[in-house]
């Protein structure tokens, strides 16, 4: 589905328009403005400096690595790097916000406009505009269910660096929204700027959804005027790729139902309830906010050296889009290539197979048609699968060089999956080499023909039955006979035409 997700209403068609704000935790050892650790899952308040706790007189000093990661991500998003950016204070009271303000970037973010290409199921690719990326501090964590009338505060996360990545309202369906988040996650993982781990909250998406009458979106794109779009609702903290589609579908339908019954959409913050599969209003966020942003006087404007940005640009790894293009030049289909580059781990695995000698197309086919299925069935990520890239590469190479048959390759894969070991050694030790010795194959063919005179008669009328003979011969040889050789000998012995 390349075009907009259209919702059929009773009064006509509606279009969905989606924008996203993604909070991605910067991969760094220490926090954005302090020397406390960012490691996940530590004892309460054990990774909190006096700065993070907002103690009197404590001052922020920025972590160079976090700045570098933001720049790197901006470059990965094909975005403009702002050589001067400013840290502002966003003022509000909340127990998990120790200083009473969050240091963030409001008017002058470190990264400006950019673009991400997303790959859709129908094989098309569409661009999604990036509005900005800015650096800010994460908040602490409040635990509310430990005690009937107390909340407990753990500030370990307080001050961890986040990149807030804001898109333009360029996504038009739940599929596109999910594809964007998947692509963004792939990019930051390729870059090594965020681990993309949504379970641990390293990546959190807030999704802005609105609906408008068919045609409204095109008018918006043509004029830039938001009046052509509907009122949006922000769905907070959608924490998995699966939920994002559900949340968008539900929220869009809800808005259409309201509009079609003569209601109006109230701009509000809503929470996705994964259990119920619905969004609901967050009343607590409804009170009027007035964040009183102003430049943080404890910090100076962040001025980047253009040469440093240039060095970071030079150090960027090959990103999914470039990698995909390169894979296509190796003979892969666009679809196969996009599957292989979708996750950095997958692409790395595939490239490791090529590096140890597998042919590009054969390796891609083997992964897409064989190995990924096995991983899926076992519920394993590629990094956790039991067969190393080198071993799968060996299997693919042995097939390509006719050392083993495709059938044996599958059996061999079973053996390596369950028992481990070097595939080449296993083939030798267990005598799995393909039989290419014509004498031995002829013997097996003759034996099958001799044992089945009735079938020999039948095959003359129905040449397709030849396959049955091939199967029997393979059985006799324990699957090791070279199928082409078996075919050729059978045909000559049975007097069948070559093209059969």
């Amino acid at each position, binding site marked *: 589905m390349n075009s907009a997700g259209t919702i059929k209403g009773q009064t006509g068609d509606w279009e969905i328009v989606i924008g996203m704000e993604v909070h991605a935790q910067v991969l760094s050892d220490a926090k954005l403005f302090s020397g406390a650790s960012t490691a996940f899952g530590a004892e309460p308040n054990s990774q909190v400096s006096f700065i993070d706790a907002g103690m009197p*007189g404590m*001052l922020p*000093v*920025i972590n160079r690595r976090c700045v570098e990661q933001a720049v790197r991500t901006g470059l990965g998003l094909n975005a403009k790097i702002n050589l001067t950016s400013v840290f502002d204070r966003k*003022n509000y009271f909340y127990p998990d916000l120790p200083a009473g303000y969050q240091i963030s970037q409001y008017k002058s973010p470190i990264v400006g406009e950019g673009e991400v290409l997303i790959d859709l199921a129908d094989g098309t690719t569409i661009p999604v505009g990036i509005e900005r990326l800015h650096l800010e501090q994460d908040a602490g964590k409040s635990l509310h269910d430990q005690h009937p009338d107390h909340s407990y505060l753990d500030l370990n996360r307080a001050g961890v660096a986040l990149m807030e990545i804001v898109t333009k309202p360029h996504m038009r369906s739940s599929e596109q929204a999910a594809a964007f988040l998947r692509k963004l996650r792939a990019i930051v993982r390729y870059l090594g700027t965020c681990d993309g781990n949504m379970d641990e909250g390293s990546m959190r998406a807030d999704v802005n959804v609105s609906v408008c009458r068919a045609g409204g979106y095109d008018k918006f794109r043509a004029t830039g005027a938001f009046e052509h779009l509907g009122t949006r609702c922000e769905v907070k903290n959608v924490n998995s790729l699966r939920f994002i589609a559900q949340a968008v579908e539900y929220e869009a339908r809800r808005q259409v139902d309201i509009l079609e019954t003569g209601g109006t959409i109230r701009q509000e913050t809503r929470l996705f309830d994964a259990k119920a599969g619905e969004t609901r209003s967050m009343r607590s966020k409804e009170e009027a906010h*007035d964040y*009183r942003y102003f430049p943080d006087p404890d*910090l*100076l404007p962040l001025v980047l050296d253009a040469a440093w940005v240039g060095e970071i640009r030079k150090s960027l790894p090959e990103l999914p889009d470039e990698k995909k293009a390169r894979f296509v030049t190796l003979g892969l289909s666009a679809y196969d290539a996009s599957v292989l580059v979708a996750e950095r781990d997958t692409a790395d695995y595939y490239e490791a197979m090529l590096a140890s000698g597998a042919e590009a197309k054969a390796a891609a086919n083997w992964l897409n048609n064989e190995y990924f299925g096995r991983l899926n069935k076992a519920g394993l990520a590629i990094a956790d699968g039991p067969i190393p890239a080198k071993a799968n590469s060996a299997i693919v190479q042995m097939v390509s060089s006719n050392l083993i048959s495709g059938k044996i390759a599958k059996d061999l894969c079973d053996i390596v999956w369950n028992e481990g070991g070097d595939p080449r050694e296993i083939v030798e030790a267990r005598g799995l080499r393909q039989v290419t010795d014509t004498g031995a194959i002829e013997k097996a063919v003759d034996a099958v023909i001799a044992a089945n005179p009735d079938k020999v008669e039948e095959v003359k009328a129905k040449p397709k039955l030849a396959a049955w003979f091939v199967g029997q011969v393979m059985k006799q040889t324990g699957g090791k006979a070279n199928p082409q050789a078996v075919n050729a000998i059978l045909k000559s012995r049975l007097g069948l035409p070559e093209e059969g």
Partner: protein
Amino acid sequence: MSELTDLTLAEARDAVRAKKVSSVELTRAFTGAVEAARPLNAFVTETPERALEMAKASDARIAKGEGGLLEGLPLAIKDLFCTKGVRTTAGSNILSNFVPPYESTVSQNLWDAGAVMLGKTNMDEFAMGSSNETSHFGPVFNPWRSRSSNAKLVPGGSSGGSAAAVSGSLCLAATGTDTGGSIRQPAALSGIVGLKPTYGRCSRYGIVAFASSLDQAGPMTRTVRDAAILMRAMASVDPRDSTSVDVPVPDYEAGLDAGVKGLRVGIPKEYRIDGAPPEIDALWAEGVAWLKAQGAEIVDVSLPHTKYALPTYYIVAPAEASSNLARYDGVRFGRRAQGVRDIVDLYEKSRAEGFGREVQRRIMIGTYVLSSGYYDAYYIRAQKLRSLIARDFDEAYKKCDVLLAPATPCPAFAVGEKTADPVSMYLNDVFTVPVNLAGLPAIAVPAGLTKDGLPLGLQIIGKAFDEATVLRAGRAIEVAADFNAKPERWWRAA
């Protein structure tokens, strides 16, 4: 008048170095003076035991031939500097039980130089005040009294406790902080020297923040030489403060007596204000004559935006303060109100109980000027004015090297005299505030007495990071003024 407590910092340093007096003797003299001066209410927390321990350690180092710039010298620390293990209140009820687990960079620099801590001095709450009357721990009384009355006078503020402690010879010197005049104004009202260095010269790490873009620590001393000595020890380049500037700290004492021959001294005409007592103008004219007599070249300059400095300050400083003071919420440290319904109630009651009226007023103003719809009209406009004020100084310094101005528009006033009208209190800082807005160094030097016998100060304002010239010109004023008057020690009888 041959008590140990009458020594200047320089004299005490030389005596200790020459082993004419031990740090323990010196320290005992001062802890005694501190105790005897409790009627002044200059200290929030006295630390005599710690002082004695530090003094003993100093004497041990001196005996071994070691020792830093301030070895064995007893100082008082404004209670805005966090001192590890010693209660630090910022003059506020909300921090009345706060014991920092860390040391401010400036105080650490002093201990590293061998100084001895006598205690923490009283101050206006969160440094918001010009009379030391907003302290939760009660007002500080100026050691000086008028010849015509025994009324208790304010020492100025916010570093009023430090000013009184230095003026009353309760310590050799003290630290202060200056956001809009809080070192120079109390120094002038208490007859001592106060130096506010260039913004970025002293680390702000560990100093309870009032207005981050304006706050600077500096020395409060009895002589200009002492200010030079203490300044050198306080200043440092600190990786823990993003606004600490990476310039070397010179030996300020070395060039102190080089004189002002050929120095171009600017006289800013806008500092002549209507309604100021004639004594202020007269003293200023005298100052001009003194410097001229010593060979300085006098230049008339203009700082056209001077009159806008105070209103600009009263937007910028409260705005920053309203945000800086949000952390006092009764959750992680500080006072928490009892019997609260929920978290919002906890915040609102803890802050209402913990902050005094002036602090609340400034938080309210700051919140207002930053709030939606007012930000551009107030805060942004004020920051533009600040650019213009800083530009005025840049222009003036094309024609001169330092500026000479009065330090305050009036001498010490009576306790309670200006508390009813906030704006009249704010006007106290009319001559000091522009300097903070521009981030420049300036010194207040005692230069004369009113006919009622109260001290008045003159101010030398310098170029950024040119404290050396400021001190040299200040020394020239000090020499010419020959200010030797001391307050009577009436509190000892009290």
